[in-house]
């Protein structure tokens, strides 16, 4: 370590170090931002995927209306005819952040930037901040060298990039930054026992609560940390002041978010924090008692009070839960412990690909070499095992488990992997880069043994060589890591999914823009109050791009409504027509990839629609009847009659074989669609089909004459009654803590 007074060429080493650090930070931020811009450069500044379209739409609402209007926003353009209390069921942090940036740039800096560009660029900008907070956090664990390594890892690790590329305007985009900030300030508060830092932690916690449902992770991790510290006998006044400050302020603040409301004192997810808060008081009291009485008395006191407190706690929890004062655990919570829970009880959660358990290659894919440095880092933490190291260990262990259960939780694991890998790697570099010591040690050895040996040990060739080999190999690993990250980002995480790209034979890029073509057609050429029915995946996109009313969307708050849409899709035309009429549907939209070979289409999601509606109407919909005789999922000649009769099948393959002038070929499922008995539609009319047939829109026909009108009206009444009879109890879905 250089001394502070040392100079190089007349400049203080400290100054050089500061300069270097600033340059490194700027480069890290630059690397973090620029590696997220692939999609903007390749395509355009566009919002990606599904959920970001809702966030984008909400942000537009926020900047065109007042803040209070935004909080009271009742959206009648989704979930028709129910509507959605959007203002009270979203986490406003993301929208408020971009809204504030928009206003600040516009009013203070005279830079009127399109809100879309702010939304697109928000995630990369925040990733730069994440790198800085990761640096600070890791610095608390080891030193600034490890911090810089962690920052660069965090900047380019694909596990984090997957949710923060430009255009991925999702809650996670800012939540990870806030997560790291909260943790950093928590460690700081714990180390110093400072109320100021405790308050800052609470502030960032509040910001986190306002931004992402994953705040529950912090709500449980910090109490767990404190709990473990107490168990380890490491309770000090510092723990007390840091935790109580954070808990009291943080909880009060978090209750200001409309969507959270009274959850912190009612929901089981938050009980751990509350319990530890109580425990800390008791421990503090015990500490006080101990300092005033002798050891023997204290032991008795301790035993009695521990038993009493545990019993009271458990009884109280059970009683409150039974009395309904505390909300029971949510379904998503159960699926964290039992990966099959969702599949059996809540198909709608299981149907989302990001809720599936993680496949093991994903760990390597998303973190490359960091995944094997991660245990090494944890081991080093165990070796030192200060209070803050306990935190990293708990964080690492918990998140490893969660990331294994759900793909999307890979995101929360990535920061701790980066931190711990950085600790390991910087330790390694500390040891192996220290060439100076090698020489000084050698000199000492020589002085002692100079009398006996001759001068042959002048140059430590082999030690140097050994160090060089290790350093070079790790240099290569690091180089390869950067290569891997860039490759993954470029190939896996930079597709907007709204726009598809393919290559022409000559190598030039061809854009397949069917989604926007169809959505824009809806926007331009249908009445403004038209209701569009589509599977819920496309709800946010239709709301965002086509600006039309939808029946269901990605905020899957009402399972029955989704099941209704599923039922309409999987029942016969006549039955579906009734449902369509009941819900005032004007257009039905399906995604069909059969012509292009686009596998993410509705026919491949069809079984989920069947399963979800079967959950509600088991006597009307049966999954088995959609399989062929031999129990296969077929769409060709062997397809079951129910399948061929279903609205989804008909809409997907309507006039499809005419394109081939005979039997058609479905390129996704690799099956032949026979020209014989081609699907015909009588209650729907094809309204629009996009260029590559990916989006097909059908118009629901009006009742054809007055005579049938009355008959149909009567059928409506009976239809409503029969829909209420349900044989199987539905899963009881609570308010979701997600999105």
């Amino acid at each position: 370590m250089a001394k502070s007074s040392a100079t190089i060429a007349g400049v203080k080493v400290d100054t050089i170090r500061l300069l270097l650090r600033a340059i490194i930070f700027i480069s890290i931020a630059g690397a973090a931002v620029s590696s997220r811009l692939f999609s903007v450069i390749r395509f355009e500044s566009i919002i990606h995927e599904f959920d970001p379209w809702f966030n984008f739409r909400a942000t537009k609402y926020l900047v065109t209306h007042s803040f209070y209007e935004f909080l009271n926003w009742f959206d009648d353009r989704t979930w028709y005819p129910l509507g959605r209390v959007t203002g009270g069921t979203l986490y406003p942090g993301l929208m408020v952040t971009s809204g504030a940036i928009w206003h600040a740039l516009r009013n203070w800096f005279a830079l009127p930037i399109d809100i879309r560009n702010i939304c697109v660029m928000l995630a990369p900008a925040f990733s730069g901040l994440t790198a800085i907070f990761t640096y600070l956090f890791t610095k608390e664990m080891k030193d600034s060298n490890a911090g810089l390594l962690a920052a660069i890892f965090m900047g380019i690790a694909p596990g984090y990039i997957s949710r923060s590329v430009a255009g991925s305007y999702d809650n996670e985009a800012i939540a990870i930054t806030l997560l790291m900030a909260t943790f950093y300030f928590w460690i700081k508060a714990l180390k110093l026992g400072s109320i100021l830092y405790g308050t800052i932690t609470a502030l960032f916690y509040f910001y986190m609560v306002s931004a992402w449902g994953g705040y529950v992770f912090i709500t449980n991790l910090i109490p767990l940390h404190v709990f473990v510290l107490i168990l380890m006998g490491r309770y000090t006044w510092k723990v007390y002041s840091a935790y109580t400050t954070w808990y009291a302020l943080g909880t009060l603040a978090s209750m200001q978010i409309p969507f959270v409301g009274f959850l912190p004192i009612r929901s089981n997810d938050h009980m751990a924090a509350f319990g530890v808060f109580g425990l800390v008081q008791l421990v503090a009291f015990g500490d006080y008692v101990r300092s005033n009485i002798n050891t023997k008395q204290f032991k008795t006191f301790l035993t009695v009070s521990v038993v009493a407190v545990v019993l009271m706690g458990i009884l109280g929890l059970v009683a409150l839960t039974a009395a309904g004062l505390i909300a029971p655990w949510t379904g998503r919570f159960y699926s964290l412990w039992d990966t099959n829970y969702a599949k059996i009880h809540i198909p709608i959660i299981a149907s989302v690909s990001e809720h599936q358990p993680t496949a093991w290659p994903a760990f390597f894919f998303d973190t490359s070499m960091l995944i094997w440095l991660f245990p090494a880092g944890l081991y080093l933490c165990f070796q030192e095992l200060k209070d803050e190291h306990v935190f990293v260990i708990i964080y690492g262990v918990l998140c490893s488990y969660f990331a294994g259960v759900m793909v999307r939780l890979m995101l929360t694991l990535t920061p701790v992997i980066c931190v711990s890998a950085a600790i390991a790697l910087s330790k390694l570099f500390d040891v192996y880069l220290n060439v100076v010591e090698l020489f000084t040690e050698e000199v000492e050895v020589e002085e002692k043994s100079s009398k006996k040996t001759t001068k042959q040990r002048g140059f430590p060739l082999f030690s140097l060589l050994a160090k060089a080999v290790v350093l070079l190999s790790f240099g290569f690993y690091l180089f390869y890591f950067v290569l891997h990250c860039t490759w993954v980002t470029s190939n896996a995480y930079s597709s907007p999914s709204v726009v598809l790209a393919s290559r022409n034979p000559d190598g030039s890029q061809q854009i397949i823009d069917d989604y926007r073509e169809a959505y824009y057609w809806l926007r331009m050429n249908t009445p403004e109050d038209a209701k569009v029915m589509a599977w819920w995946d496309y709800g946010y996109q239709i709301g965002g791009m086509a600006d039309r009313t939808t029946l269901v969307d990605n905020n899957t708050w009402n399972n029955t409504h989704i099941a209704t849409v599923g039922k309409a899709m999987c029942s016969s035309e006549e039955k579906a027509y009734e449902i369509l009429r009941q819900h005032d549907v004007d257009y039905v939209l399906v995604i069909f990839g059969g012509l292009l070979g686009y596998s993410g289409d509705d026919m491949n999601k069809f079984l989920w629609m069947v399963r979800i509606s079967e959950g509600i109407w088991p006597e009307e919909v049966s999954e088995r009847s959609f399989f062929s005789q031999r129990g296969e999922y077929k769409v060709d000649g062997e397809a079951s009659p129910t399948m061929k009769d279903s609205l989804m099948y008909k809409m997907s393959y309507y006039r499809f074989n005419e394109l081939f002038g005979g039997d058609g070929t479905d390129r996704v499922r690799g099956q032949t669609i026979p020209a014989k008995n081609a699907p015909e539609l009588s209650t729907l009319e094809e309204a629009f089909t996009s260029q590559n047939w990916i989006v097909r829109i059908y118009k629901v026909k009006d009742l054809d004459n007055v005579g049938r009108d009355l008959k149909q009206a009567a059928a409506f009444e009976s239809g409503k009654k029969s829909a209420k009879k349900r044989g199987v109890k539905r899963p009881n879905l609570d308010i979701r803590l997600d999105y």
Partner: protein
Amino acid sequence: MRSALLSVIFGAVFAIALVISDVGNWENTHYARTIDLSRGYVKETDLIQITNDGDTKQKIYYFTLNDGFDAIDDLSIISVGVDSTTLAVKALDSGFFEITLPKAVSPGDSVELRVSYVYLKGLEPVPKQIDMADSQQLVVKLNKMPYSPYSTKEYSLRFIGVAKGQEAEIFDDRATANPVIEARVEEKALVYGPIVDDIEPFSVEPFGLIYEHQQPLAKVENLHRSVWIPSAADQVQFEEYYELTNQGAELDKGFSRVDWMHGRYELTRDHWALKQLEFPMADTDFDDYYFTDKVGMVSTHKKIQNFLVLQPRFPLFGGWHYNFTLGWNQPIGKAVHKIDEDTYIARAPLLNSARDVVYKNVYLSFYLPEGAEFVNISAPLEYKQVDVEDEYSYLDVAQGHTKVTLKFENMFDDLGRVNAYIVYRLPAHSYLKKALKISGYTFAALFSYYLLTMLDLSV
């Protein structure tokens, strides 16, 4: 500039012609009408030989559109010429156009007038809804007779740009008794007459001509065209926002992609769906142009030979809409000239002249450089209104850009050759002022940060 010299008059409202008490004594010795139906609007050119029928020299001639039964609406321009000179035309409330001849005409002498006018509303698809494979038929409603305050001696009516035509009778109680006029085909044109007969003043014989027209009737309801003049850079920025629609025939059922692909309509020029817009690059090079709509960039655009071809996301059938934005840069040298010390004149065409498109409302906005003072604006066409306001843009720290907007109505593609001119004053130091202001603010921010770091906030 020929077009700049055109004297043009707008007139959208046509009252039933009130007879002006004294229209003078004229006689239309020859009256030849030519109606061009090759585009999505109606262009009529009349050659009228007028003879002074009175006893005194006359200088004023009154012209009326050949209407008489409210068939003409959305008149775009009317221009009148004698030989090669263009005359001033004054629109009167009564629907008459007062033409002042270059010199008075003695009794018995004659002079030949060339009147041409364009109107946008007059074409309609019949039937309104057809199959994708059918051909589109349009009907144009016209007065078969000359509608003039004076009697006509010899008359002919000629249609060009019509492939197949068919007459349709229209009954209207304003019709008058008229001589019979026969039709024949001559050199790819449909010709009525000429007949030599006494045609009474204000004769009306409504008739419709149904003809095949395999081109879309592209109409832009609103065009917002903005021209950003920079203070220091060397590129003028243009941005246009179109609200495009097709007024042609509608589909009788939903749009079927199979039929569209089988018919190969995408490739043929001869189909009435609006598939693409062609912008000639004669005057503009479209340097770094962009083509976007409300959901982002559109990738289907190309420069082909001398045209910039934009393809909407979907083909437009009758009644379908498509809104989009087109923007590009242009070297400043073509658009802005210095008049003196600190006064500049800038010009911009009224339209972008995409082929065969008509425009209902056109808003042409000039954004002057920040700190510029608006002096004057002029356009050879009469504009409905002019607005001057301020608009804040990037790093505008003072009062913002001055925005001057002209509103035009009822335009068609050929008017893209007409320029509007704006004069403004921009003191040389105003550019520096902005740069200094911005750097001043930045410096103040940095310096205050420095001062803040001097404070000792440790508790």
